């Protein structure tokens, strides 16, 4: 048996899914968090049952790719659990009535039930059940209330006999609402007033700047703190002596020594420059990148769960129109700062193919992921803020210039923003920490092995002198146009695999600040890492991916070349 969880965006389907199956999925407070369906399973009366978390949709007449996914899924389910937002019954019923017509056994979960109480809404559940002809269960998925009853009612799911004229749907909904819902007047809460202030331009823009500033400060504080007080001491005091011993046992040389420990610098292990699997291979992802990834996701998850992102989308909408997008495209850009892979997936919330191409390409070219940012900060940061400002300033200019060009020359339309602004919610701490953990776990599982593979390949490349060989071919571009030493080609090769390792490879080359800036910018822009590349190819299709990649290579050479001339 297969159960589908369907409902409007941002009503908490993923939270219900997580409660039913125990499968961890990312849940946030903005419409369009889930853009792909997730499968899980549960046991109902001893029987194995598949549960699918379907992306949210307002209607079965889809308007975006994420909604299309949802509409196609409906044919494959045996039972539909329609999750509705009890505080927004009218809007939710629009989908409910369309689902009823599909004649699938169905039940309704009235989620966010706790919020109806302090928003002055009361719903007559029995009457609603009677009218719709399917079981209705009030739930509060985030705390787990009502989930048990929901599970019990699954076997009671029914095909409704409710009939209505398609053209009269809204009148029907109006009639139902009049019968089951009562709204009592209440005062505005603090969160609602904050909600109004954060979208009014006079207060919203200062608030956005404060949030941006606080975000940077918090990420730096947590990231630097973890690196300086936890991970570096751990590696220097505990791991380094151990590795030196191992190095001594292997006679401080030989190919196995080179691969595991790497080169010793003045008889000591240098965790950045040694380039061994057990030294640099572990130090880079765990001690240099992970603390920042953790800090970033902590802040991002808070912003997601609070409901701030759609408001930010409204504020930046005008800017986004200049680059052929609308405000919601801020979401892939923000996610991209964490990791470009989920960001590429999230471009599905954009309505047209043109917008998806522009947002994915701009994101992949100009938005470095946190792993790469952490390495750039570690490498260039010691020269002061000017170098970092040049790198990130250049990337922002590239983002704007390319976006304006895309907007001018790419055919197709970019529709306007049309987005639900959810109420502010105080993030549920347990849920938030779980989400951070899911993402950190994903990083450890997906990134760390690739870093090790990267470090291994570096050793192979050096051992067989492949880098010098490729270096000769690419010399005109690398040395003449970009002004980098030939060995930098090694970083560019590894950059296809993992950009953090690639930035790390620049460390032993003895580059000047100018060369470091150019190399960091080029490494960000020239091509996505392999994980991002495969995701983008799936999302955009092969031909558009080729176009996108062509644009990346060309713009990286131009931007790097210009920097080489100007700096």
């Amino acid at each position, binding site marked *: 048996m297969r159960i589908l969880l369907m409902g409007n965006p941002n009503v908490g389907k993923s939270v219900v899914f997580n409660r039913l199956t125990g499968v961890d999925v990312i849940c946030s407070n903005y419409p369009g968090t889930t853009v792909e369906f997730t499968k899980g399973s549960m046991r109902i009366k001893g029987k194995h049952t598949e549960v699918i978390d379907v992306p949210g949709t*307002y*209607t079965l*007449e889809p*308007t975006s790719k994420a909604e299309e996914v949802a509409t196609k899924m409906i044919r494959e389910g045996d039972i539909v659990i329609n999750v509705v937002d009890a*505080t*927004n019954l*009218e*809007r939710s019923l*629009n989908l409910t009535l369309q689902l009823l017509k599909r004649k699938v056994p169905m039940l309704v979960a009235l989620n966010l039930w706790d919020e109806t109480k302090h*928003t002055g*809404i009361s719903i007559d559940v029995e009457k609603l059940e009677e009218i719709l002809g399917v079981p209705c269960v009030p739930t509060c998925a985030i705390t787990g209330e009502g989930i048990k009853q929901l599970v019990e009612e699954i076997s009671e799911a029914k095909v409704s006999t409710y009939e209505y004229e398609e053209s009269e749907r*809204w009148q029907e909904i109006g009639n139902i609402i009049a019968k089951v819902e009562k709204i009592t007047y209440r005062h505005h809460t603090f969160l609602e007033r904050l*909600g*109004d202030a954060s*979208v*009014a*331009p006079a207060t*919203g823009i200062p608030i956005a700047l404060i949030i941006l500033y606080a975000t940077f400060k918090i990420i730096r504080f947590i990231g630097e703190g973890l690196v300086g007080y936890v991970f570096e001491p751990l590696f220097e005091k505990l791991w380094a002596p151990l590795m030196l011993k191992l190095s001594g046992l292997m006679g401080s040389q030989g190919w196995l020594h080179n691969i595991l420990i790497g080169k010793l610098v003045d008889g000591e292990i240098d965790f950045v420059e040694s380039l061994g699997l057990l030294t640099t291979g572990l130090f880079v992802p765990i001690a240099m990148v992970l603390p920042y990834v953790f800090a970033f996701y902590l802040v991002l998850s808070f912003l997601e769960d609070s409901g701030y992102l*759609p408001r930010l*989308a*409204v*504020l930046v*909408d*005008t800017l986004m129109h200049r680059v052929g997008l*609308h*405000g919601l495209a801020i979401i892939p850009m923000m996610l991209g700062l964490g990791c470009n892979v989920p960001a590429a997936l999230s471009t599905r919330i954009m309505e047209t193919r043109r917008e998806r191409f522009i947002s994915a390409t701009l994101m992949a070219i100009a938005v470095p992921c946190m792993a790469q940012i952490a390495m750039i900060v570690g490498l260039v940061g010691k020269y002061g803020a000017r170098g970092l400002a040049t790198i990130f300033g250049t990337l922002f200019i590239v983002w704007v210039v390319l976006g304006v060009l895309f907007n001018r020359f790419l055919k197709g339309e970019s*529709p*306007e*923003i*049309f*987005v*639900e*602004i*959810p*109420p502010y919610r105080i993030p549920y701490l347990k849920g938030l920490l779980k989400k951070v953990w899911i993402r950190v776990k994903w990083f450890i599982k997906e990134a760390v092995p690739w870093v090790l593979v990267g470090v291994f390949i570096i050793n192979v490349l050096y051992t067989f002198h492949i880098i010098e060989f490729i270096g000769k071919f690419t010399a005109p571009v690398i040395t003449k146009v970009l002004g980098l030493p030939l060995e930098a080609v090694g970083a560019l090769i590894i950059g296809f695999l993992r950009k953090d390792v690639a930035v790390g490879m620049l460390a032993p080359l003895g580059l000047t600040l100018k060369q470091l800036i150019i190399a960091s910018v080029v490494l960000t822009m020239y091509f996505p890492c392999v994980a991002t590349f495969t995701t983008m190819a799936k999302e955009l299709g092969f031909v558009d991916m080729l176009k996108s990649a062509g644009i990346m290579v060309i713009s990286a050479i131009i931007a790097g070349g210009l920097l080489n001339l100007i700096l």
Partner: protein
Amino acid sequence: MTKIISLVEMRVGETGKIVEIQGGHGMVRRLETLGVRTEKEVKKLSGQLMRGPILIQAGNTQVGIGFGMARRVLVEVDKNA
């Protein structure tokens, strides 16, 4: 006395009833999924500078609507308010 103006022309804080949506079937359908449809009472919450989106309250939902679309949603408001 009432008058008919677009969401763009409404003042922040003003309430009105939607009387017409000047758009094709696709746009009307898209708007109604979030409860923006004729006969509906809406309140304007804010507008952005430089032709940015308009924010309205429709029922219990807050919706951000792009400037071009908002211009084509006509509401009936009290003239003296």
